[in-house]
């Protein structure tokens, strides 16, 4: 396994967490809203047109892309959302072939999942990230201190940082079009433009029912799985598919929400503020103890005499 920087933090975090998981956090009430909005992405419907990327760029006033949204060669290599693109569509060839022996592509749109119990929000020590009642995990730039704990905590590796901006860098991720969906009848930019309704917008509970009905009505077309129903305690964005998720770059995450893990990292960091005292005490002790072993300069002098 290649160990990325992020992966390294996760491992060290997990080690710290394992040491200090406490009952108090497990008993804490879940911050998940009762009836949030969500989006259901039906991968069997996505045609890879990248109109969602285009719309997202427009509604969020993001910088123009290096290559046009109509340029299909962009799909030739997999991408991740970054500070200039909150959502990206990737193409996979999982192996099926059509009647003329051509590989059939599957397209996957990725963005922030808007977790029900977001790890990024729990990791944030100043409350810049919060799960809103309407489902959006919202970022407040005025509170952010730029510590980037959210980037380490997110199990989906979503938040990006404006490293190029030395004065006012921000953490950037899909906003779930918070302002737009807060208005009556408002839709996320991507869901509104999608030509095939590969993205269905609605209440999370309704979408779960829609997803289950689609799978039940067409068991040959879909796998019996909804990514995001239980993953990390449930997410506002969910996916259904014809191809196993692991072949489509989906990250294998536990069903339990990871916030507790992130929170424990935070709390243990602060809880262990006493640790330097112990460390220096220990070092001091060693020095003191080893003091007698070293020949004393005066003794040396005395020997020479």
């Amino acid at each position: 396994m290649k160990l990325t920087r992020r992966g390294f933090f996760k491992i060290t975090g997990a080690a710290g967490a394992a040491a200090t998981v406490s009952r108090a956090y497990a008993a804490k009430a879940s911050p998940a809203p009762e009836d949030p909005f969500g989006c259901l992405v039906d991968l069997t419907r996505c045609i890879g047109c990248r109109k969602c990327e285009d719309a997202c760029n427009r509604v969020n006033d993001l910088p123009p892309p290096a290559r046009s949204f109509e340029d299909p060669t962009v799909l030739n290599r997999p991408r991740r959302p970054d500070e200039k693109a909150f959502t990206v569509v990737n193409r996979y060839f999982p192996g099926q072939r059509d009647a003329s022996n051509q590989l059939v592509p599957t397209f996957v749109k990725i963005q922030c999942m808007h977790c029900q119990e977001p790890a990024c929000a729990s990791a944030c020590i100043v409350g810049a990230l919060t799960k809103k009642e309407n489902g959006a995990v919202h970022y407040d730039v005025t509170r952010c201190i730029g510590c980037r704990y959210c980037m380490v905590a997110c199990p989906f590796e979503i938040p990006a940082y404006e490293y190029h901006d030395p004065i006012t860098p921000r953490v950037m991720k899909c906003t779930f079009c918070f302002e737009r969906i807060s208005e009556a009848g408002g839709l996320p930019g991507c869901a509104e433009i999608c030509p095939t309704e590969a993205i269905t917008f609605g209440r999370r509970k309704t979408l779960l029912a829609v997803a289950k009905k689609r799978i039940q009505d067409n068991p040959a077309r879909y796998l019996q799985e909804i990514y995001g129903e239980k993953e990390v305690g449930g997410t506002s964005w969910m996916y259904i598919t014809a191809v196993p998720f692991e072949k489509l770059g989906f990250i294998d995450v536990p069903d339990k929400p990871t916030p507790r893990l992130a929170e424990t990292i935070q709390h243990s960091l602060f809880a262990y503020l006493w640790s330097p005292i112990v460390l220096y005490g220990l070092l001091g002790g060693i020095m003191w103890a080893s003091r007698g072993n070293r020949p004393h300069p005066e003794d040396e002098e005395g020997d020479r005499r």
Partner: protein
Amino acid sequence: MTKPFSSGRALRFLIALMTVLVAAPAFAAGNPEADELALSPEWKAPNQEEARQRAQEVVPLIEAVVDECQLCRQQRLRDVGLGVKDIVHSYFLLESPIIKKREDHYGPVRFMHTKHAAAIQDCAICHHARPADPSAKETVRCSACHQEAFRTDHPERLGLKAAYHQQCIQCHRDKAKGPVDCAGCHPKNVPDHKELVKLGANPEPWDVTEECLRCHAAAGEDMLATAHWLWKGHSAYTLNQQKKVIHGKGTTAINNF
């Protein structure tokens, strides 16, 4: 041996490629089917104005439809004797205010109703449900059932835009006929290149290529990474692409253009 990239060679190659691309439609013209599909953007149906007006109508939503399988639906249409001969409007302009209210980035799609019906010979493929109201007409327009997307009262029902796209693209794929890309159906706003292209009198072929690359630099870069330039390998777009071609200008051949 592969020689390092030289811009002169790239240009000459592009010219050759362009020649092929420009010539291709001429070959296709001999094929009547290709003729039908490649409607020029300027083409106007004789009943264009009437179609445009019809496209503006929004009919009341049909709340309930008869729940039946496709086979039963086909059977019923056959029983009532509905077919191509009964078509009232042979030409539609798909430009509903329901769609325009939300997004309006593309021009309307021209839909040849009779032509499609005659080719498919199965009305039930598109007219896949019957209104539950017994007094309603047997077949209704798409927008009678499919209107706004994501309605809370009908969460499972597709909006009009998605109904069009799913129906058209799926059928074009299944039958391996008809466009599946955006511009294949929607007229695209390509700026008039007469205004943009600046060439002196009697330009050499490479002058033309250079002029193309002035704006389409990325297209030129892309070409250098394709089998057209490298003459080897792997392209996701070619048949049996899983078999890598190891011989070619980019590898074993000496004459590398």
